[in-house]
């Protein structure tokens, strides 16, 4: 569950990225966060992952109050999230299996847990049989699937996807979004930050639009015009 209550963010250089954002996302929801470049979408993602702190207002993520979270609690909060980036951010010198093991090892998983969980997740994202491939041997869509698998592998409550289709063609983008919808249907909360108007309009989901740091729309489905 995410709660942003009257959140403002002003960076050290004086840029006011967010101005009084109020947002509530319940467990199990699928939400598109849309808006033009520089509107404050990335700042919201950084706030939710505790990379930056709010200048004013309250930020609560999966039960953690990020306004007064202690440094040692941040890793535990992040384990409740799976994060997907536009540029995939895979480790090129590790295989698909190696990338997922890396993510699981990070949170202290045992080899037994890895042997059990990784094949399941790879099957879920449609990469069964690609365990030994290196990221450079995969297409963009497949690389993003690996990134989704990595985000899923530690069984997070929520996935935050930051422009997950930004580097993909329309067909692959649709496949990835369909996959995210399927994962959401299995109970994982999904927050997808995107520019992809066609995709947003194709999926009838809740759309939160922001512009110049202010929320300008929060509604279910419907047509979104940037």
């Amino acid at each position, binding site marked *: 569950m995410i709660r942003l209550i009257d959140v403002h963010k002003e960076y050290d250089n004086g840029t006011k990225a967010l101005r009084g954002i109020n947002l509530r996302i319940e467990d199990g929801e699928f939400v598109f966060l849309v808006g033009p470049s520089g509107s404050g979408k990335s700042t919201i993602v950084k706030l939710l992952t505790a990379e930056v702190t709010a200048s004013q207002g309250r930020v609560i993520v999966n039960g953690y109050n990020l306004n007064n979270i202690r440094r040692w609690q941040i*890793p535990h909060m992040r384990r409740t999230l799976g994060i997907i980036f536009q540029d995939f*951010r895979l*480790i090129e010198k590790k295989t698909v299996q190696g990338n997922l093991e*890396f993510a699981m*090892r990070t949170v202290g998983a045992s080899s037994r*847990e890895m042997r059990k969980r990784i094949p399941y997740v790879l099957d879920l994202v449609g990469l069964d049989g690609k365990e030994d491939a290196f990221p450079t041997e995969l297409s963009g869509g497949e690389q993003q699937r690996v990134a989704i698998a990595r985000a899923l592998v530690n069984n997070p409550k929520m996935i935050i996807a930051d422009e997950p289709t930004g580097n993909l063609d329309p067909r692959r983008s649709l496949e990835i979004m369909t996959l995210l919808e399927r994962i959401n249907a299995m109970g994982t909360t999904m927050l997808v930050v995107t520019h992809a108007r066609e995709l947003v309009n194709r999926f009838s989901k809740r759309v939160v639009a922001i512009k110049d740091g202010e929320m300008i729309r929060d509604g279910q489905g419907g047509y979104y015009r940037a």
Partner: protein
Amino acid sequence: MRKFNLGYFIKEGFVSIFSHGLMSFAAVCMIVACLIIMGSFSLLAINVDEQLKQLEEENEFLVYVDESFSFQQVQQLMERVRQVDNVAEVEFITKQEAKAALVGKYGNNGLYATMPDEVLRDRLSVRVADLERFTETVDTVRALPGVANYRAESEVAEGFVTARNAVTALAYVLIGILAAVSLFIISNTTRLAAFSRREEIAIMKMCGATDGFIRWPFIVEGLLLGVMGAVAAFFLQWGVYAAVCRALTNSGATALFTLMDFREIWTRVLQVFLLAGSVIGMLGSSFAIRKFLQV
């Protein structure tokens, strides 16, 4: 879920050394160079200290006994001198023995050969334990009843103390400076390794890795590099020391200055090198990684 995976940290530390082979080699070379320089200064300081200790042992002062004192009173005086704090040894020298020594030193044809024994006084040769308290000890002894006069080379003793303190202070300062330089170099070398892995570190942080989980493999890597550098530096230091010893022997300078045998001090040198290498490696890595944990 396991909280602490020592095997993983050690494995990652080893893997990292070989996956950044050139930087690891550079780091080991830096550690070796710094330890050799530090070790050479330390060995010089140890040898100078040893030489000064030997010179100190030969240092003594003379106490002339009142001529009116009987042999028994002289014995009592000797006992009182022995009880003075910092007195290591007291030897009684009769006027005849003193004259014989002078004649032996200056020859039979000199003034001393024809000099009557009565011109000289019976004396005590007093050796001190701690040269730094030489003057204080002389003052205490010369105040004892029965001491007619004394002869003490206080300036020489103070010179020894000053020389030893100067060498020790210089060695400490140099070791401190070199340790700081080593730390800086190792830290920068590890920072390069951490920089090349910043993407991995950022991914780990986003997956929920604790700072400790990310830091430990780097610390293990620093420790391993430190130990490798220490072992290499130890053997090189041994070679350098043996070469210096040979050169001194061949030049005949050993009559003036004798170096300690390396076999007497090798365990101390190895221990210090291992400790210094490990600490420098681990601290350097810790400093280097800090910046990359701020995600």
